[in-house]
């Protein structure tokens, strides 16, 4: 890729020959870039076009917007409990990702900085558990929570708390390894000197380690957030009442039966759902590249 001789740059005038050379060195890269951007954007353009389409049906939607009507957006809020879903999702995903990051940071600190019996077994077990997606046990979860709903309706079906507890169950498996890796890269002289100065293990963790890994906490938090927003299987079994649904469950229901007529509303909902994630994504882009290379996976 970088083997092309630099000499060619010197005589880049306006001649056809050098234009060909420019294309061979840089131009084709732009061509690939433009094609890739086109591939990335055309479904999104289609969604925008559908959201602005005054007719609001799938059959009347074309790739380029044919109108500019906000009717789909107003319908979305008036005809469906979209605001409820949006708040449910935002709250659930926000609280769950924050709590799960905290839990796995605690565990990662212990695995990275302490030596104790069962450390190796524990790490290997987490690795294996991470490989077992929770929704394989969906039948068992359904049965267990049937009992739980009977005993404690406040954390049973149709409540965000039961779902929150379940998402917590995956916290350790998903992020501990990644965070342990980052804790390992921090020089341990830092916490040693703090210990010598009389800091307790909790002070070392909260005052020294956590601030240093803040960027990676932000990235894993964002990934956990996206994961919870997109989670469908467990939420679908859990939330059956219209007002308690999350975005994924509610919007799936919107196009499950009436896919043609509700498509405009659905597209409008998709755009609104994307707003928070896209914003945070662009803000954190710099961290995301390094965070992803260290082993985070979109859940």
């Amino acid at each position, binding site marked *: 890729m970088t083997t092309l001789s630099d000499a060619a740059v010197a005589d880049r005038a306006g001649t056809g020959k050098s234009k060909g050379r420019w294309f061979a060195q840089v131009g084709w890269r732009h061509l690939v870039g433009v094609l890739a951007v086109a591939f990335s954007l055309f479904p999104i353009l289609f969604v925008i076009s559908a959201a602005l389409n005054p007719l609001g049906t799938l059959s009347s939607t*074309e790739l380029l917007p044919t109108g500019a009507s906000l009717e789909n957006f107003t319908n979305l809020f008036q005809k469906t409990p979209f605001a409820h879903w949006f708040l449910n999702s935002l709250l659930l995903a926000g609280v769950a990702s924050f709590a799960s990051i905290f839990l796995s940071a605690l565990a990662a600190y212990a695995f990275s900085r302490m030596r104790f019996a069962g450390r190796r077994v524990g790490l290997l077990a987490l690795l294996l558990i991470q490989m077992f997606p929770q929704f394989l046990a*969906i*039948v068992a979860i359904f049965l267990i929570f049937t009992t739980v709903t009977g005993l404690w309706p406040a954390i049973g079906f149709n409540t965000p708390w039961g779902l929150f507890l379940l998402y917590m169950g995956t916290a350790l*498996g998903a992020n501990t390894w990644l965070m342990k890796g980052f804790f390992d890269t921090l020089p*341990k002289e830092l916490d040693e000197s703090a210990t010598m100065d009389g800091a307790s293990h909790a002070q*070392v963790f909260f005052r020294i380690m956590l601030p240093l890994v803040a960027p990676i906490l932000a990235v894993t938090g964002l990934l956990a957030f996206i994961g919870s927003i997109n989670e*469908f299987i467990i939420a679908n079994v859990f939330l059956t009442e219209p007002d308690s649904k999350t975005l994924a469950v509610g919007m799936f229901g919107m196009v499950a039966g009436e896919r043609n007529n509700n498509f405009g509303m659905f597209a409008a909902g998709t755009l609104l759902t994307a707003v928070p994630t896209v914003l945070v994504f662009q803000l954190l882009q710099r961290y995301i590249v390094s965070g992803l290379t260290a082993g985070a996976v979109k859940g």
Partner: protein
Amino acid sequence: MSTSLSGPGSAEQAPGREPVRRGLPRTPRTARNHAPITATGLVVKVVLLGLVAGIAIWAAFPLVEAEHWVGLGILAATTAGLFYLYLSRRHIPAKYLVPGTIFLIACQVFPVLYTASTAFTNFGDGHRGTKDDAIVAIQTSSVRQVPGSTEYSLSIATTGDPATGPLVFLLSDPKTREVFAGDAGGLRKLDAGDVTVSATGKITEAAGYTVLNFGQASGRSKDITDLVVPTAGGAVRSNGLSRAYEGKAVRAYDAGCDCVKDSETGKTWTADPANGSFVAADGERLAQGWKVNVGLKNFTRVLTDPDISGPFFGTLLWNFAFAIGSTGFTFLLGMAIALALHSPRMRGTNVYRVLLILPYAMPSFAMLLVWRDMFNTDFGLVNDLFGLHIDWFGGTWSARIAVLLVQLWLGYPYMFLVATGALQAIPRELTEATSVDGASPWQSFRAVTLPLLLVALSPLLIASFAYNFNNVNAILFTTEGGPFAPDNPRNGATDLLITYTYRLAFGAQGAEYGLATTVSIFIFAIVAIVAAISFSRTRKQEEVYS
């Protein structure tokens, strides 16, 4: 990742992290453990432990009420353990590990074990409860009105919300003026002073119940028809919204022959304890059965029953192809674009990057549904743009190609991002050195760039494979497993094992939890083996020993 930093050798001197010694972990006397207790620390500790105690007390009451002593014991032990752990100054690692581990055990390990145990039963529709439950269900469902049945005036009431709360029949006997409340649990006599009876004999008010008006009641007419109140001689059923009768059960259980007899036709169904159902001589089974252990029957059924094993192995093969294809194609495309944009003379790479990764930031569940509609035969965008008229999800291979294409779109921005990150980490001198030595770009890519990329990204590729192996959303939101062969509605051409399981457990065919959990266990085993083999070849494995 500098694994050497925390090696046991280097940690020898570090307080609070001495290498594992033989026997129990012993916390050393070090400065860290004897650090003074700060006021904030103490307050936080007290508040959190108080919260734990509060939650435990809140959770205990329903357990006591339901006489769930095992659950209460576990709750008490857990709470006591937490108090001991956080009040003592020892067991420091456990203080950090226990919070996450409690959730892990309660919400992941326990369901997995429960899954494993259900796989050895016939649990599912028609086999939910005990044999006694089944007998009651059979008797009550066979109730008929016979001459001389007691007739009641009926009012529909509920203890909860009129639209969703549990229904109760409020009955008054016009002859004896006695009043009753009945639900699925049985009939209870009410105190005549607590109820108001109208001139027509209907109960209009009763203490503790909300009486439904006609509109509310007719909205729940199906629930009302289904409600059967068991009584000693048969059961009370509704007849319209304002009358009820006590009918006689036509079918009755006879303990002597361990069978159910129909007093009208004289037919008998004998209990079959191996399968948990009542079977007649002509092979007819009653719909209501009970849950029994069936041993390894579900496992042998998956392996040998041609209706299940055929689809199972076909699905397994496609499952692997799907996971490998999803990971491989996204990686190849993402890497190719990353390589193309990775040049010191490229201008505007940031603009490309911001636009390229947009699919990754869009909500994937919604975009999967959008793609499903873009592949629509009649008015889908894909057919429109290219002037085609293909029924994408109608054919086996076109459906598979469509699903992989969707996966490519969703996944390649991620691979592009990580490949860009990894490429930036490869020193430029390496590729320059190869070009000085006269290697072609292709040779330098094959010999230097690709191996280095693979070293950096192989853990990610494995994780991506494992994730896609069970990627329910990708199938459920697009093809829903279809297209289905006309003779087998249980398994479609793009079904993954996990979507197949989902259909077995919750599908319209009737729930077969026992069989579904058996398939779950097969998936567990396959993913674990694949993961174990691949991780044993990566650096992740080595980090464990650091």
